[in-house]
């Protein structure tokens, strides 16, 4: 079966893009190779199952505890950070968050921004927002830089440029930076280093994300391997950190297991090269560090997920990406197919709260529910369970009061009637037997075309005799028991 039959009736963006992605051999090779390697690295980093499971349980409890006190912890974090000299801002929407960031840059008459890796800034589409207002916002994580240079979005939350191979990057650097084409990865990285170092030096403002915000001490913790996070947060005169409200943890000690779970699950590393713990701007007598540090706390639908005790678990996420690395769907279609900031299993359960199910109606069902994501999640988010819940919310009628943003996006009266008919048929013995009698007698009358199903499959035809019938005969012949 090498020849795929094109599906003509498509119902949504995800399906369209999946068709294209599945037919792209290069893309599939790039993802398959990368995901296989990341899965192996994670497995090697957790050689002791008992240790791993104990740590996952602890991670889950720490996040659940933090969420059970979230408003108090946010206030404590704000008070501590303020004491430390950090200015805290709150934004309900990405628009508000962008306005805040732009306002801070404007107050310094800034025109150049360097950004460490931040998925929340992707949610905000901060680069575009600032560019429209004359502020250059440059990505400084190597992967993000490559993706930005090519006018793309990240395809993986930890490895943004994983969909590209070295030759594609070499071509891109040659075209955009005017350098000689080289397929030596070291040389490509050195080109990035030289280009970005000047930007770090000249930038007016550095923007970063946050991995954990510690309420106890008023500390913003960032993990990274490259040093671009340290550059972005230390070299420019102003540092703006943007983060979701769910990133706060109660105590400093809480980050010990979370940090270990994060770096081992994400990359199979015992720890990242740098763990950068920022507790304030430059002090009066210090010689470097930003003069101003700001934290923007973004809601963007998180409080909506929080309102539902089951959906609240999506806020446990520490953004390690292990769920996508282990996802058979993600590995085949790649990150861009999801069309949203957060791809893969975690994307499917967090995105609806941000953009609504109308925008991502196919996400909850783009899963085989194999369970791999839930099994590897370092903070034990029951992703398959939440996907099933979203499938239910997705088809609720308005009268049933869907609880998720734009719930009922896929509600159809026709589908509901068909299922009701099916239910009645299967719960009434008389009707069931009558249907069986008709289906086996009039099997030739089954339609040859059954919606999109028959575009890739042959139409189902009932057998001449039912299983019940055959079983009865079998038992009669063999004496029955």
């Amino acid at each position, binding site marked *: 079966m090498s020849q795929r039959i094109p599906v003509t009736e498509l119902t949504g963006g995800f399906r369209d893009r999946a068709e294209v992605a599945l037919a792209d051999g290069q893309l599939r090779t790039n993802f398959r190779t990368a995901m296989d390697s990341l899965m192996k690295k994670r497995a090697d980093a957790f050689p002791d199952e008992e240790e791993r499971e104990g*740590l996952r349980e602890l991670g889950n409890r720490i996040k659940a505890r933090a969420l059970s006190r979230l408003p108090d912890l946010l206030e404590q974090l704000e008070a501590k950070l303020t004491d430390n000299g950090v200015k805290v801002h709150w934004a309900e929407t990405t628009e508000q968050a962008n306005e805040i960031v732009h306002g801070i840059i404007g107050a310094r008459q800034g025109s150049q921004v360097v950004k460490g890796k931040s998925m929340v800034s992707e949610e905000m589409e901060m680069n575009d927002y600032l560019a429209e207002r004359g502020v250059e916002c440059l990505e400084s994580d190597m992967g993000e830089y490559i993706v930005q240079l090519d006018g793309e979005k990240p395809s993986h939350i930890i490895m943004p440029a994983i969909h590209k191979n070295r030759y594609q990057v070499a071509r891109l650097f040659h075209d955009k930076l005017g350098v000689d084409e080289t397929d030596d990865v070291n040389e490509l990285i050195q080109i990035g*280093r030289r280009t970005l170092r000047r930007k770090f030096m000249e930038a007016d403002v550095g923007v970063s994300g946050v991995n954990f915000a510690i309420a106890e001490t008023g500390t913003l913790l960032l993990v990274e391997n490259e040093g671009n996070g340290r550059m972005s947060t230390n070299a420019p005169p102003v540092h703006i950190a943007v983060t979701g409200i769910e990133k706060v943890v109660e105590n400093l000690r809480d980050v010990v297991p979370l940090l270990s779970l994060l770096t081992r699950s994400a990359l199979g590393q015992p720890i990242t090269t740098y763990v950068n713990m920022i507790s304030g701007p430059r002090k009066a007598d210090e010689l470097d560090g930003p003069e101003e540090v700001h934290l923007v706390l973004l809601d963007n639908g998180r409080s909506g997920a929080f309102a539902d005790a089951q959906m609240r678990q999506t806020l446990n996420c520490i953004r390690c990406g292990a769920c996508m690395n282990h996802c058979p769907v993600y590995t085949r279609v790649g990150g861009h197919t999801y069309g949203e900031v957060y791809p893969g299993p975690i994307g499917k359960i967090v995105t609806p709260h941000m953009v609504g199910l109308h925008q991502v109606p196919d996400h909850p069902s783009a899963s085989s529910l194999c369970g791999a994501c839930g099994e590897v999640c370092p903070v034990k988010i029951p992703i398959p369970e939440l996907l099933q819940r979203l499938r239910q919310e997705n088809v609720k009628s308005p009268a049933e009061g869907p609880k998720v943003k734009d719930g009922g996006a896929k509600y159809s009266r026709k589908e509901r009637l068909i299922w009701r008919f099916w239910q009645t048929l299967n719960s009434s013995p008389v009707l069931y037997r009558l249907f069986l009698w008709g289906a086996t007698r009039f099997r030739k009358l089954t339609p040859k075309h059954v919606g999109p199903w028959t575009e890739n499959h042959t139409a189902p035809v009932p057998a001449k005799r039912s299983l019940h019938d055959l079983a009865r005969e079998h038992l009669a012949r063999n004496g029955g028991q």
Partner: protein
Amino acid sequence: MSARSNILNKLRTGLAGSIPRPDDFDERLVTEPWQYAPEDRITRLRSLMEAVHTEIHQVSSDSWPEKVAGILAARNLSNLLHAPATAHGQKLGEYWPQSGSSAQLLAYDRPVEEWKEELFWQVDASLTGTVGAIAATGSLVLWPDRHEPRLMSLLPPLHIALLRASEIEDNLYAMMQRQNWSAGLPTNLLLVSGPSKTADIEQVLAYGAHGPKELVVLILEDA
């Protein structure tokens, strides 16, 4: 209504009727798997850090400045950034004239703004202290301050760090407890576990992404 009160109100409504979860943090889960006999700590630290291209030397507390001169000479570097107001910076400064090294000693003694261009592009190497290390993960702990600023361990392509053998702890939790981090942190506490690296292209590991290309650790055996 401000964004702040809207968010907090929504969260409080979501929590209505629920009680906070108890703090049942079980420290054994983050300490017991990561304990080493004192003599094994250095071995563990070395194996992890060397696996990510860190160069490590065990030297005596007296002779380390010579080693520094040797490291610079071997690489033919022309300068070294140090922190003269620290004990180790002072020691290095006293030794340097007799080292015979052609490398110039630079001091981080003025605000970054006054020499940003030079710091970013012309400093070859730096020497900083550490406040200890973590055997479990192979990490140095850096506590930058007025005398030894943050960028010292980030900008120069070669970073040399001094570590006292007696200050290696088993794990991060033990380090936090011993140094009582929750009582007060510097503006920028750092864990450094190797030279800067990236695997963003095809997952091929490349060193020297944005930070130091080389990290050299001198473990000082107590005399």
